[in-house]
């Protein structure tokens, strides 16, 4: 998936303009800071090179397909800001419903699906016209949003209702509710498109849903040495491009769990900062970066040795991490 996007982007960049080419694959790391009201930009050498002032409470972030634009959901101003990756400036804002938290683009990049935490709605936004085309009611405090790989289905969690809503993209209707653990937060779809992983923050679990049948097929728990189950609050997840390893941040347990996807019982734990949430991988899969919400820093992890390399203070309450590669 990433490969296809990257190839497409590369072709477009080569064909279209030198500006795009310059913006492409800078290797820069972008971190949104919820209470700093900025997106912090770090060089591939982990030097802070820019602080981009955004609308208030920037949270989830995604690049467009060619990585020329970075979209940032800003919860307290009810907008998704658009940052020009070449100039590192906010150039536009898309209005949303109250308190946008997590969003995704449709695979064809024509729509945004965004969870509105305050009024319990999954919003469909048409990207060309920047208008809301559908509002799907969800359980209270919707958060994680993701597409099925074929783009026909959108999944959204409700943190309060302890369920995953299955939303049909064409009709903008909930077709099924899947009960998972307590306070479901985020999603990952495996690269083969077969499995939807859901982190359950308060029941210290990760549910795996079979996307073909929409039934729960596995429930995983994690316990780093020296912790109790109630300390383990899984939130952020990322899967390697080859699907061989799943990375799961464990929140208050201050560790990253790395699951061997072949064996699934084999888990390595990496010590990170305080209340680890978001996690991102570099495109070459050699490095993982974790955002630590309570220690206001990010931890850089070497994926070969599974050792933390360094931590960098970034600003108040880092939320999301994306890498321009």
């Amino acid at each position, binding site marked *: 998936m990433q490969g296809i996007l990257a190839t497409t982007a590369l072709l477009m960049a080569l064909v279209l303009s030198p500006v795009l080419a310059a913006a492409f694959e800078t290797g820069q790391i972008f971190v949104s800071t919820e209470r700093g009201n900025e997106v912090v930009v770090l060089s591939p050498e982990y030097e802070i090179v820019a602080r981009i002032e955004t609308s208030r409470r920037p949270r989830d972030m995604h690049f467009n397909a060619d990585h020329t634009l970075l979209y940032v959901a800003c919860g307290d101003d009810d907008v998704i800001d658009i940052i020009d990756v070449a100039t590192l400036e906010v150039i536009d804002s898309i209005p949303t419903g109250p308190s946008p938290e997590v969003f995704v683009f449709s695979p064809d990049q024509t729509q945004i699906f965004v969870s509105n935490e305050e009024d319990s709605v999954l919003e469909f936004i048409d990207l060309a016209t920047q208008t809301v085309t559908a509002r799907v009611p969800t359980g209270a405090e919707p958060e994680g949003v993701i597409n099925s790989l074929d783009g026909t289905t959108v999944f959204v969690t409700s*943190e309060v209702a302890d369920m995953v809503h299955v939303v049909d993209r064409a009709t903008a209707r909930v077709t099924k509710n899947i009960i998972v653990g307590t306070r479901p937060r985020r999603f990952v779809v495996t690269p083969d498109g077969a499995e939807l992983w859901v982190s359950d923050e308060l029941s210290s679990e990760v549910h795996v849903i079979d996307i073909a049948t929409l039934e729960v097929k596995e429930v995983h728990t994690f316990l780093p040495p020296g912790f109790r189950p109630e300390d383990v609050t899984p939130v952020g997840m990322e899967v390697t491009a080859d699907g061989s390893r799943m990375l799961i941040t464990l929140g208050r347990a201050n560790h990253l769990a790395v699951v061997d996807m072949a064996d699934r019982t084999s888990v390595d734990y990496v010590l990170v900062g305080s209340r680890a949430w978001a996690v991102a991988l570099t495109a070459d899969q050699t490095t993982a970066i974790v955002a630590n919400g309570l220690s206001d820093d990010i931890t850089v992890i070497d994926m070969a040795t599974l050792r933390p390399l360094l931590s960098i203070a970034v600003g108040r309450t880092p939320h999301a991490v994306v890498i321009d590669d």
Partner: protein
Amino acid sequence: MSLAFAFLVVVAGLLPAILPAQEAAPEKEAVLIGHISLSDDPRYLQDWGYARLVVPPPVRSIEGAMLALEDMAFVSDAAGIAPVVDAREAANAAEVATAVMELSGAGAAFVVLDLPGDMVAAVAEATADLPITLINATAPEDALRAACYPNMLHSGPSDRMQMDTFAQYLRAMGWEEVLVLVGEDPRDTVMAEVLQASLDRLRLEVVEARPFTLATDPESREGNNVRLLTGGVDYDVVFVADTRGEFGRYVPYATQLPRPVMGSVGLTVQAWHWAMERDGATQVSSRFDRQHGRRMTTQDWAAWIAVKGIIIAYTRAPDRTRESLTGFMRSEAMRLDGSKGVTLNYRTWDGQLRMPMLLASSEAVIAIAPVEGFLHATNTLDTLGVDEAEFVCN
């Protein structure tokens, strides 16, 4: 575990807006939940005293219960239940007992009580033979826990949990010597006694406990002059046991020694505070504020979590007999999200909901207990309140 509840998943969301067109709405099972409060509850009166005094915030804990219904609408729909809260106001203990009987007769398995401690005790005894579980949301007396009423759970914090919270904070801060000022209300005496037990457990010291009075005559000056009350002895903090707060509000910034004030005024202990901003607490508070136009209090939270727990039990217990529901409520399988960062459940020995507690000023949450460093053999939340090993049923 989720596989065991696969039957819940069969019924898709039933709100009209999301109902798949081809699916007819199946009949939902009505679930009646009672809520009983006291008309003119002396704990919540706004107009006592001659001064312009609004000490306790206005409390209508039923509003917390209603928020829980709304928050759980999707869960209820998915489980095929239609919960309704029947809110009653009673004028005295006899009316409360009658209301519980009526609710039981109408099929309610749970009633949430927002009542003073003596009435909670009276109604527990009067309705002991009814097939109904009472959830005490707002009476903090430890005696109610120690009474071991078989039909009662407690969703609000006990006195001991509150005082243990102070003690942990004092220990963590190294503030070991406490001057206690005690008022004339019987609840003030209880507060001071429970504080003593909590301080003893952590080897903190009450340097002196001094009674204060609201009388202003010169003969009572040892008890009504804050500088005299707080003079002649050294201490790290002043603890004010003043349930009504009419005297206590004059203590901060007026002590003989420059020391922090806590207890009924200054730094207080709460189960909930509007300024709590972690763990999704902000979203709960803002939903409450939007719906009811005021800040959510500890009492609102206790009614909210009580009703939320009841609905979770209806959706996750093996079946919906009262035995299964209460058995599930009292089991470790109960995992209740109170938006305080950890799962909550009811203690098996005294029916008390375990929960983190907040130390708060009027403006901010200063600390959360269990304070970091306090450990426990099984669950750190059990460092707050009477623990299993020391618990005795009266």
